[in-house]
């Protein structure tokens, strides 16, 4: 039996240990983030084969990179995950000289706190948190106040996510979603406690479907899923980032420490920074891209959809969720109080 095991191990090692061909790039990315035609165009132009694997959470990327034996050359972590990956040395610092199309990016998404100077990452797509609602029933809505309005008792859905729920309350109070003052946070918790009897359900996975099904009329949620259901019922549903601003998230391209196809990885990243490719990506996946030069090439319908591209004045009031250190504990505790009430 031992012999059998050794033989098996040897066979497996032989089959996976072969050195990679120089003409491939292994991309680990969110589902529906890379249209087929973009992959095909890149392969045609460069002769480099693109292998795509998909994941469902930032934590999956972290686990894979921490293993040290994942063979990925390009990964797409969100803002807060880079804050974890960079100090652990799990992603390479980028050689900007090899990314001539970096200049196409919108400066609004560059040089963020999670990666100063974009030494390790290139913004890819971004989005917002806002409210999806039944405009036929409720008329236009433009403020987080609606989620706290007794008029809509029993018709409200909140994300089951402490930072997002507190974010809505804090924004309504005119504070930052990254507020650390315990007194202010307690005040926000009181608002959320008072709101609780109006809330039909706290849900972060199925909120868009519940809105589409008519189980709720107002749903706090992320724009991707909400834009999707809105596009299938544009006469009935709408999405808005409240005028007070919401959360902003940015997903970024990065190269893992152990990447073996470095040339191909740089070629791939620079390719998706080209205006034509960047526009094809946005047109294909219906998420807002971080590429400025691509804007004129993007379908007008997508470009002008406020559920996808939040208007500039709203975006200016949106904030990235930051790591709050010890304050996180207080928020978790207050959130438990809200939920347990």
């Amino acid at each position, binding site marked *: 039996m031992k012999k059998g095991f050794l033989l098996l191990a040897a066979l497996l090692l032989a089959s996976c240990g072969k050195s990679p061909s120089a003409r491939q790039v292994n991309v680990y990315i969110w*589902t529906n983030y890379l249209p087929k035609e973009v992959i095909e165009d890149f392969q045609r132009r460069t002769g480099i084969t693109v292998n795509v694997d998909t994941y469902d959470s930032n934590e999956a990327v972290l686990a*894979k990179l921490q293993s040290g*034996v*994942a*063979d990925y050359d390009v990964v797409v972590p969100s803002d807060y995950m880079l804050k974890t990956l960079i100090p652990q040395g799990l992603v390479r610092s980028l050689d900007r000289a090899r990314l001539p199309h970096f200049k196409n990016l919108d400066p609004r998404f560059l040089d963020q706190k999670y990666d100063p100077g974009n030494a390790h990452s290139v913004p890819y797509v971004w989005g917002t948190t806002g409210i999806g609602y039944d405009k036929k029933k409720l008329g236009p809505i433009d403020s987080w106040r609606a989620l706290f309005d007794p008029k809509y008792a029993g018709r409200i859905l909140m994300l089951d996510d402490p930072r997002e729920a507190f974010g809505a309350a804090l924004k309504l109070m005119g504070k930052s979603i990254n507020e650390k003052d315990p007194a202010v946070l307690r005040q926000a918790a009181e608002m959320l406690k008072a709101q609780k009897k109006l809330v039909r359900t706290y849900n972060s996975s199925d909120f*868009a479907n519940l809105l589409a*099904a008519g189980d709720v009329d107002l749903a706090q949620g992320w724009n991707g899923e909400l834009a999707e259901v809105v596009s299938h019922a544009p006469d009935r549903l709408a999405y808005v980032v409240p005028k007070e601003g919401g959360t902003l998230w940015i997903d970024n391209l990065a190269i893992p420490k152990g990447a073996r196809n470095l040339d191909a990885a740089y070629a791939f990243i620079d390719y998706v920074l080209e205006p034509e490719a960047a526009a094809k990506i946005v047109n294909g996946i219906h998420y807002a891209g971080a590429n400025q030069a691509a804007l004129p090439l993007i379908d007008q319908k997508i470009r002008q959809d406020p559920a996808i591209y939040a208007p500039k004045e709203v975006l200016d009031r949106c904030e990235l969720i930051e790591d709050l250190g010890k304050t996180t504990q207080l928020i978790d505790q207050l959130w438990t109080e809200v939920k347990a009430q």
Partner: protein
Amino acid sequence: MKGGWPRRLLAAHAALVYLFLYAPIAILVVFSFNASRQTAFWTGFTLDWYRRLLGNELLFRAVRNSLVVAGAATVLAVLLGTPAALALARYPFRGRRATQALLYLPVIITEVVLGAALVTFFGAVQLRLSLWTVVIAHVVFSVSYVAIVVRARLAGLDPALEEAARDLGAGPFETFRRVTLPLATPGILASALLVFTLSIDDYVITSFVAGVGATTLPLHIYSMLKVGVTPEVNAVSTLLLAGTVILIVLAHRLLGKGQP
């Protein structure tokens, strides 16, 4: 009718249990033919999702990966687990009890722990993650199931049958080939079926150890959740369900033949 109402109550109870078990599956199948993208309303019959499935290369690759992994893991686990079961059931050896206890470990241990342990191990031996690391991981937890199921089958056999074979002049190998193995076959097949199902289902461990090009169907479906489950997922689940049902019917037939 004497005792009529308890009987009817029991029947109603049984019907409710079956409804509870099968209604979600029935709804999943029905909604794979739904014309609307939403899973909330029925808007009309369509085969569109099955058509789109045919054009979805990533999903197809995921199905293929799942079948390759489940097939390979089943064969390897049966080859490794059956001898282990034989040894445990038939031959006393030093450390038998410890071996037996260790065999149960992968079954009892939390999947997350096993997944994390495997990925650490692969990291330590510098084995790059790929489809083969998924196969290895699945074999790790499957061998135990095979050993346990086959051993239970062997334990239920009358040792007199093997003794009789030897009395009649059969050598150890011939006894094994012509008496023990045929008698153990239903157990081996049942364990193979169990392992195949467990492997094709597994998300947690696979998510830890999958490497380049090794996205399996459960991984793919989970990753689709970010943009919402479409009826495409219902369609592929329905196909998988149909495949499973066929497998189970086949297995039942095979097992039925094995027993008088």
